[in-house]
């Protein structure tokens, strides 16, 4: 009941705002939106208590029959994993709603913004609460829709509109894989229900062949990569920064992009049956992490730094879930939601302060001007850099330890992880130093000012969470692991190695982080290096030109092919063929036309001759003689 209600609240908010948003106006719409999500969070919190004592492993809430002949019902699953996700979504969501009241102040479509935000929360809840792949897919697509709507919220800007479309289309390519995975799953199992499938697989791992499991998992990975912006489908996320900053924080950092991680965690048992896929997922994750981290170094736009950082951090999560460190992956998902949302909101606050300026080249020396923003962002910075005891350290370290624990070829991934950790610390520090330290490089007339309370309050809350959030799952007291245990009961998870190894690993990763920060400090504070230009930096700024590459190899040829099909093949060949037949008939007709003299008596001769011929034929052939 409560679960249904916690889903219904944002939905009701969405519907109310959809029809009356304009009438409610500012700030009522914002309060209404925030209230529904906040209430949802409270309900989720209350409903989660049942798992803390380690009770049942989840229950199904059937809403209504959806596609009965497929046995596909609108059914919710309330288990620790979905509870965890719900808490993150509604919790962070509520904070970002509140923040948005301040951020979107004065926007002519203030109400519409909260309509979309509530739609997003609803969709995301459908995604994480779905009890079968069908409902999951519904949520999956609906978050894509809300993401589309929110990215292109300022649709007057052509770049925003294009970014929204790009996000949706790239996601659709991922969904294409997901959809095929669904078909494969349905064809193999005859149902899409999680519990059903997992139980069967648990009881009888040979129910599907390894090949099938590999196919399913790789296809799921395509879907997950699309949603979570992993290589090679990451290109939409940086562009998605065209959306308002709270959107970037909520959708493109904290929640929606982690849906891929959630899905892999949810379907962990499939991955367990497909070792190849584990390696692929982990490798994709590791490569993405490294790849995006290097790009982040070269960015000038504060939000794009964070965007690539998000891609990179998602890579970590994929690494984690890829090696079946499901708890580690989800743990990082949670902590990342805290500190990345905080970073985005902080960045939003900075942008707000700078009157909309996003280019770091025109910031600098903001420490004093926006002290609360600065203070909270420092927390997030330390957290993401992996310096204990802040949140990022614990989760990132757990992932790295689990990867290390798998040994073998995974060692290479661990090394990539460590390198990335160093790079992460470096580019985050670069961002912080360029923004808050040094001399002001502001444009004329810019008067930085601290944001209002409804924006700083969420920052403070998130800073608190970023600081202590890691403590929910320390090696000393793995609360989260216990909490999530029932959800992963069917999966044989990978764990961190025993003994002293984890401590050594932690030391190395802390070392990498500290090194990164220190080098950045030397470079940007001590040496006062400004934003770099040219050469390699240009390449990094353009994200290695992947966009151009896709443009040249896929988009342009695809469009050319379409044009060929439309204006040559279709118009000339297919339709030309049809018209050609018509033309031939016409030609024949005009050849025969002179036979029509128009003289009735000539026709009469024809009739008579025909009649005589017919009778002759009857006599000769018909045996009438």
């Amino acid at each position: 009941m409560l679960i249904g209600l916690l889903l219904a609240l944002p939905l009701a908010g969405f519907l109310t705002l959809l029809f009356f948003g304009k009438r409610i106006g500012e700030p009522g719409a914002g309060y209404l939106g925030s209230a529904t999500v906040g209430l949802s969070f409270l309900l989720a919190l209350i409903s989660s208590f049942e798992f803390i004592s380690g009770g049942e492993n989840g229950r199904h809430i059937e809403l209504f029959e959806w596609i009965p002949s497929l046995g596909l019902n609108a059914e919710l699953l309330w288990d620790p994993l979905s509870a965890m996700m719900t808490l993150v979504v509604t919790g962070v969501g509520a904070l970002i709603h509140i923040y948005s009241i301040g951020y979107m102040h004065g926007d002519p479509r203030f109400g519409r913004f909260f309509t979309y935000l509530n739609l997003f929360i609803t969709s995301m809840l459908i995604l994480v609460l779905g009890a079968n792949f069908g409902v999951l897919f519904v949520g999956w697509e609906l978050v894509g829709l809300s993401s589309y709507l929110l990215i292109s919220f300022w649709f007057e800007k052509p770049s925003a509109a294009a970014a929204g479309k790009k996000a949706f289309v790239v996601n659709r390519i991922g969904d294409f894989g997901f959809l095929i995975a669904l078909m494969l799953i349905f064809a193999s199992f005859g149902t899409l229900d999680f519990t059903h499938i997992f139980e069967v697989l648990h009881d009888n791992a040979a129910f599907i062949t390894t090949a099938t499991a590999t196919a399913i998992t790789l296809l799921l990975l395509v879907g997950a990569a699309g949603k979570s912006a992993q290589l090679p489908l990451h290109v939409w996320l940086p562009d998605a920064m065209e959306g308002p900053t709270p959107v970037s924080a909520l959708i493109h950092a904290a929640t929606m992009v982690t849906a891929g991680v959630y899905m892999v965690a949810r379907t962990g048992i499939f991955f367990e049956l497909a070792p190849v896929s584990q390696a692929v997922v982990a490798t994709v994750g590791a490569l993405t992490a490294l790849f995006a981290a290097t790009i982040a170094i070269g960015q000038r736009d504060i939000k794009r730094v964070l965007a690539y950082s998000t891609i990179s951090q998602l890579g970590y999560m994929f690494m984690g879930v890829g090696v079946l460190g499901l708890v580690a992956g989800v743990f990082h998902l949670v902590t990342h939601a805290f500190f990345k949302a905080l970073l985005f909101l902080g960045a939003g606050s900075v942008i707000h302060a700078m009157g909309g300026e996003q280019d770091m080249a025109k910031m600098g020396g903001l420490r004093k001007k926006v002290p609360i923003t600065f203070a909270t962002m420092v927390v997030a910075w330390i957290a993401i850099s992996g310096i204990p005891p802040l949140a990022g350290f614990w989760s990132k370290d757990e992932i790295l330890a689990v990867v290390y624990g798998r040994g073998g070829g995974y060692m290479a991934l661990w090394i990539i992880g460590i390198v990335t950790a160093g790079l992460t610390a470096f580019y985050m520090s670069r961002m912080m130093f360029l923004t808050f330290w040094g001399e002001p490089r502001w444009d004329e007339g810019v008067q930085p000012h601290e944001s209002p309370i409804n924006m700083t309050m969420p920052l403070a809350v998130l800073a608190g969470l970023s600081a202590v959030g890691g403590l929910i799952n320390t090696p000393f007291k793995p609360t989260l692991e216990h909490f999530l245990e029932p959800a992963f009961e069917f999966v044989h998870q990978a764990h961190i190695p025993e003994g002293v190894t984890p401590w050594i690993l932690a030391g190395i990763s802390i070392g990498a982080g500290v090194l990164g920060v220190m080098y950045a400090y030397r470079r940007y504070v001590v040496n006062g290096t400004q934003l770099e230009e040219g050469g390699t930096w240009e390449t990094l700024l353009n994200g290695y030109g992947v966009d151009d590459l896709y443009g040249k190899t896929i988009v342009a040829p695809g469009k050319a092919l379409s044009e060929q099909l439309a204006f040559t093949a279709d118009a000339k060949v297919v339709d030309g063929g049809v018209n050609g037949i018509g033309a031939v008939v016409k030609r024949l007709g005009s050849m025969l036309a002179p036979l029509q003299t128009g003289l009735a008596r000539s026709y009469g001769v024809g009739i008579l001759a025909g009649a005589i011929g017919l009778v002759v034929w009857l006599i000769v052939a018909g045996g009438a003689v």
Partner: protein
Amino acid sequence: MEHSIGFPVIALLVLLPAAGALVIAMLPKNRSELMMPITAAISVLPLAVSLFILWEFSAADGAEFQFAESVNWYEPWGIGWNVGIDGISLLLVVLTAFLFPISIIASASITKDVKLYMVSMLLLETGLLGVFVSLDLLLFFVFFEMTLIPMYFLIGIWGSENRVYAAVKFFLYTAFGSALLLTAIIALAILHSNVPGQSISFNYADLNELALSSNAQMWLFLGFGAAFAIKVPLFPFHTWLPDAHTEAPTAGSVILAGVLLKLGTYGFVRFNLTLFPEATVTLAPWLGALAVVGIIYGAAVAIVQPDVKRLVAYSSVSHLGFIVLGTFALTSQGLQGGIIQMVNHGLTTGALFLLIGMIYERRHTRQISEYGGLSSVMPLFAGIFLFMAFASIGLPGLNGFIGEFKILLGSWLAWPVLAILAASGVVLAAIYLLWAYERMFTGPVDNEANKGLQDLNGREIAILVPIAAMILFLGLYPKPALDRIEPAVESIIDRIERVTDYEAPEFGRIADVAEVAGEAP
């Protein structure tokens, strides 16, 4: 079980619009402002009757022809008024009756010869309803052809610049298919008389009992199939469609896309699958392949169309490909998906054409490049357009997804490769619709002519809201519809399996396995 309510309700349904046409024909010609409201009022009557039928229809017996009526006209040849509605035709009948009042109300801007226009619309409705209820092949053919003439007039008289070309092309192309259809129908009826003790028969029930040689089945399948493939239209017989759609007046496009194209897919399901099961099984992969080519081809061609109406027309080629694919996958899921998708496509594409018509009335252009930034000036219009676009893209929660998903599942069992290729149509749909949306609705309003555009008025909202409601309903709660389709579909698949050595592929049944697993410990 007999489902008869002792009243010829189907005859009433089919003949009401024709009677209405007579009424309209008797109205004085100079009172053209009365025509639209009266016609709309008349067209609501068949809707009411169809809703009554929907209400009375027994879902459990969806495989049977209910409300059957049988009046002999020429008994020796089994020709007569044999009509009935089963789960397959039910929704199409309701869809037809539903779309007509909407498209008639949407025709308020027609000023040229309103009377003839309205008469054509009503006659068209009779023809379309007749096709879906006919259980006599000759009757079917008569109705099938009857739709052609009003449509020809609708395109040829009230269309845009190139209307005559489009109308003639439409007419000749489909009439060519019809000629083959008639030949095949007659051949089939005569073949029935070759059976000892049987005479010529056009009765669907009689012909269903007929065991044909595989050779005969093949030729007859092709004869029927040619007409239906042109009507659908299946690639490569589709080129009449973009022209006809583009040139037709709004209501014509709506009916053309919404209902007329379904005659082809309906014909495939109703006749090809049941009358020629062996040929169906043999030819199914070819048709499936053509359908997939159509899906991708239609979508690819749609992407670069400069004319938004043409774009939607090509998207129809793509969507109808899905329906044909589902039909010939010869699995229960695929066929169910195909049938529900017929309804879905009718709703969404119909709505898209309505929307395009509304903007056309304001700006008198269909070129995408003429627009831009419409979201700012017509937010409501933009919102509804986006809603319909997403329904067409197949966003879950809206109707398009249900059909596509079932079709893909069903065809996956038959031909996984084709299903995968077809699924790529889902991606392409997002590209062409969202790109068109981007170009038309977002960005700055840089064309002066677009600055003063009025947002939707009450009448326009009133015709769009019911469609949107249906789209949402079918997307969220398709159970009532699927419950009625399923028995009919099952019986068709069962029949094919019984008559031929074909076995419909099944899903892995987890339920069975789970039971075994449960018993083991």
